[in-house]
């Protein structure tokens, strides 16, 4: 499943990051690489963006970006 589909409060591991090369590159530089643990923290009031925890810090991204991140529980 993609990171967007991960329920709030759940932990998962990144399996792959696909899509637009610029955003993939930056996501990975921010530590979202295959094997990294992520936690879905919350969704913003209007449903987008989302907040995830990765490598001990909070990262906000739009669902558009989260869709490019495959995770498995």
């Amino acid at each position, binding site marked *: 499943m993609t990171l967007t589909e991960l329920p709030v409060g759940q932990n998962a591991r990144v399996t792959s990051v696909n899509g637009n090369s610029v955003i993939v590159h930056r996501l990975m*530089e921010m530590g979202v690489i295959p094997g*990294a643990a992520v936690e879905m923290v919350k969704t*913003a*009031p209007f449903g987008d963006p989302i907040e995830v925890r990765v490598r*001990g810090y*909070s990262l906000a*991204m739009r669902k558009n970006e989260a869709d490019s991140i495959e995770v498995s529980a």
Partner: protein
Amino acid sequence: MNGAASSQIIIALAGNPNAGKTTLFNSLTGLRQKVANYPGVTVERKQGPWSVGERPAQIIDLPGLYSLDATSLDEQIASEVIQGKYAAEQKPDVVICVVDATNLERNLYLVTQIRELGIPVVIALTMIDVFERQKHEIDVDSLSRQLRTPIVAVNAKDGRGIDELERIVESLFDEKPSILDLPMPEEVSVGDNSRIFARYKFISNAVQESVRHNDQDSHRFSEKIDRVLTHRFFGLVILVGILLLVFQTIFSWSSVPMDLLEKGFGAAADFARDQLGPGMLTDLVADGIIAGVGGVVVFLPQILLLFFFISILEDTGYMARAAFLLDKLMSRIGLHGKAFLPLFSSFACAIPGIMATRTIENRRDRFATIMIAPFMSCSARLPVYTLMIAALFAGQSFFGFISVGAVLMLAMYALGIVVAIVAAFILKRTILSGPPPPFLMELPPYRVPNVRTVIQNMITRAWLFLKRAGTVILAISIVLWALMYFPRAEVSPAGTTAVVVDAQANTVEPLPESEQLKNSFAGRLGHLIEPVISPLGFDWKTGVALIASFAAREVLVSTLSIIYNVGKDENEESESLISAVRDAKREDGKPTWTPLTGLTLMVFFVLAMQCMSTLAVVRRETNSWRWPLFMMAYMTALAYVAALITYQGGRLLGFE
């Protein structure tokens, strides 16, 4: 830029945003820092002196960056400076990389990148007190060995580690470290990004060897606060509450110092008049320089307060939450959540607002934000609104208890916001259209703001503001004054102007100020544009004030006060200017100002581009004349049409 290249030691301070870089920079350089811009762009360049051993050095505080592979203008400049690729900057001798102990892995990513280039690096480890309070343990020596990079734990508050930092920087001058050569991972299925894997693998190993994490999650404190502040409902309520509080405070707290400043400039003008005696020089000093510069400097308290609040909101980490809360709304009109801060700042002044857009990575989003920022009613419009409301709507109310003035004031702010939304929507679907850019933003942990950083930021802003008042505004004031002062006589024969004035005084009554104005270059211009502005209900005198106000909006008030001949340093609250506005008559004897023409003027001021300094910043920021000219044209056209609709519509409804 740094001429004495061989003798000058350059130390660059680099690091992720929110790592504590600015706090460290302030404690290393104190008040001796200089803030300028990198040539051609508005990315700030902060520099300050430091001494390493006996040798004098300069520290450059670079904009925050996550990676040398830049995605924003800020990052690009920081990256180029670090690598010595930035043309106007000497390659740094040593890079101090500021690393946040509570967010080690991602912060160390940049360190490994810089080390791979063989650039001498020392890590300044910050937030270690916070980290240890969270009951984590870190073995700094081990981490340093693992990373093959010297590390100093620093605390900007009590000065811990500063001496050691100096010692290590000095040692790096002599023994250049070897290039960090990371082994590439074997499982090569990741293409271009294999280096990122290698770096994170190297970092993870080092951190695992040297850091013992407390099982209990340390970020729960921020998460608890966030449960309220980014709550679906309360989060938005609190956001609106904070904004209202900030504005309320800015306007109420600044009124006392602003009145004092106004009185001070009035006294200075009187003093100049007394000391210099009558003459052209006196008029230039009192009416041109003191009135012109003073009219702008009175806004200093508001600017200071705004930056006080912005610094605090940013330093605590709240600004990122505001962007998080509002991104969805902003993206509906095609903007980025990060556009919130620039637009918010623009309520004080569009210039810092436009400068703040540089954190928006995507060019189209950034330009769209720049193009709508001046619609936010800035503090320079306030004197205009205040004058019109006080003169034409004072004491009136709806249903006996809602003040018309307050409603109008709110309506002017709302009009600006609505037009900005529509303009952004259209711009993003026409000349600035493109695929939605990525939105990736760190939500830093909540922290108590550093008092010193906040104060330093206010001082820096105040200084930049005063510098502008002393240069650009000064020049404009002198030009405007000259346009209203010359020519002195109907037919001015060759000879000095002073002689002409004297001769006139001997033969005829000296021209009253208003007659002089009618005859001046500015007055002629006013008459020239009268056909254009009469459909808006304005006469030539208003035309003069309008032309003058294209330099800066607040100039309208001082120009009107000269025009109505009520003395030269009246402020917008003064009884006489208000009654002069009420009593002003057109040439046909009808009153110049009615509630309808007052409202029309206010609408015009909400939308028109009347600020030279903003245009200059837009020129610098977009690096072309096309954008500021377009801004000037479309905003002024919009203002004209809206004012026309207001006035003609009002007349159709039976108002005068």
